[in-house]
């Protein structure tokens, strides 16, 4: 084997390098993996499956007090209620009912309480084709104008269905319209969405892609 001075030097250098490496590896001198960033857990409220609203039927089923629906604690039985309109022909909601915000239909087209309620029978609802409905049957009232939606709801394509898709194995629940829609202002209000996704690697440089408005 070549044993000249140069080899000796090289061997000595290598010995030192390997010894240093041994020490460096044993002491974990570099490359400790960074701890995984702990992301905040989602608010448990967002995981709830209950509907935003509870229908009259829900309240009855849960045996909750129904005072809010007993109109004749304040109103006189048999008396025809009269609506007030302002000079722009917009409905004026009396202070006692100021929790009702009318927003049913664009341009205030449906802003007449007695399109759905009955002016002398406040504890029932009426359809345009003259049917009288109880509060638990409000879905039929909605459907009397929103025909295609009622058709879809009956098929299960509109509105939330929950429980068992296999009806033989368990119960299946279909919601009433008012479980999701406020009948006086049925369009869903805007809500804060759940948090955006957190990517493992944030892309560096440049703004997040935005929709190209071509």
């Amino acid at each position, binding site marked *: 084997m070549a044993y000249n001075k140069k080899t000796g030097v090289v061997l000595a250098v*290598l010995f030192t390098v390997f010894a240093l490496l041994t020490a460096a590896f044993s002491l974990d001198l570099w*490359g400790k*993996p960074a701890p*995984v960033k702990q992301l905040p857990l989602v608010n448990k409220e967002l995981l709830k499956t209950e509907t935003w609203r509870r229908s009259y039927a829900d309240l009855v089923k849960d045996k909750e007090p129904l005072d809010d629906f007993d109109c004749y604690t304040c109103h006189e039985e048999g008396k025809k209620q009269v609506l007030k309109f302002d000079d722009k022909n917009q409905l004026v909601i009396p202070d006692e009912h100021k929790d009702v915000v009318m927003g049913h239909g664009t341009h205030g087209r449906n802003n007449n309480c007695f399109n759905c309620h009955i002016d002398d029978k406040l504890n029932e609802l009426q359809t345009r084709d003259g049917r009288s409905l109880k509060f638990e049957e409000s879905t039929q009232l909605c459907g009397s104008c929103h025909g295609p939606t009622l058709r879809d709801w009956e098929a299960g394509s509109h509105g939330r269905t929950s429980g068992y898709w296999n009806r033989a194995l368990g119960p299946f629940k279909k919601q009433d319209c008012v479980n999701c829609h406020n009948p006086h202002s049925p369009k869903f209000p805007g809500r804060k969405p759940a948090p955006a996704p957190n990517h493992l*690697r944030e892309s*560096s*440089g440049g703004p997040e*892609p935005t929709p190209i408005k071509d």
Partner: protein
Amino acid sequence: MIKAIHNYIIFLRRCVKIAFVGDWRYYAWMGLLTTIVLLGINAYCKQFVNGLIVTGMSDEVSWGVYIANFTFLVGVAAAAVMLVIPVYIYRNEELYDLVIFGELLSVAAILMCLAFVTVDLGRPDHFWHLIPGIGQFNFPASMLSWDVLVLNGYLLLNLHICGYLLYSRYCGRKPSPWFYIPFVFTAIAWAISIHTVTAFLYVGLGGRPFWNSSIVGPRFLASAFTAGPSLIILALQVIRHVTLYKISDKALLTLRSIVQVSMIINVFLLLNELFKEFYTGTVHVASLKYLFFGLHGHHALVPWIWTAITFNLSAMVMLVLPVSRSLKWLNVACVLSIVGIWIEKGMGMVIPGFTPTTLGEIIEYHPSANETLVCLGIWAFGLLCYTIFLRMAVPILQGQLSRANEGSDHLTTQPPPKVVADFHF
């Protein structure tokens, strides 16, 4: 029979022994490579324990430098065939012994490929699931299963051819054509197939329009036959310098013409790709836009690809002009080709396939330090293997390591015996 095995074991022992012996340059080189390999092993252990989170990969860019290097090295492995074809088909005697050097490079490259794929796996302990018969091998549907078969088959083919030829030379025997000629011709077709199968890994994915293009296969082959022989040109000059093994300039110039033609084809295919995407201007041009010009403010790859294009074009010009007949300029052209193609085929192929993602996002990828150490470790391992193979092969080819001088443990300065071996076709 027992004697034959005994002789073979002696041969192997001597080969192993000689690998640990050398002059100061040998120790310095091997020491350097070993150091890098050790750093790579340490980095991989960290990855094994903590998972692939220590790399720069993500759900969006789920393949990175590991697969990029794998793709490049499969090309290098396939390029050994570029030596085999002139020798065995065109009967170019100049390149004769060089076939062994080229095939040994292939073996080293395949070992590197297998290493890169292994370090890329999320559960390497489940590797046995891939073994046909024992695990569940999704052949022929999965192109990855084809890759497993062709790469391992190619490894065995080359190991056999080199091993047989070298052992025959060691024994002073004329190698029997039946034991290597058919394998050599198989290796030619097989080499094309390993790189085509690797290309098909990418091409067969409809969800990735950047890859789902028929030009990927031909482009892979053209770039492989540029980068591979370039590496061999450089390696042969190193061998020539370090071991005084005689390699004529004519051999190097034959390889130069291979690199020249392949690079021209490679650039032509690139122009085809650019025209198809940029002229048509469908939505699918997004990946190429990201690569060349950046997209929506993300431009990490832009300097890389333009460097690669510059290198490739400069190399092509040099190779076409007679100036590259001089070894100095040829070497420059080779280095430019290798680096340019490594960038283009590695980062320039893998990453844009994932950017933008299938859902339109752009998440950029940067290899982490740990990932880089693992890559360097595997490259060093490959060079280590190749050096060891050469350390065994050159003395055998020169007659210094042969059955005739088995008695002496030390290599002496006696002139080598006249070797009878003479390869005929």
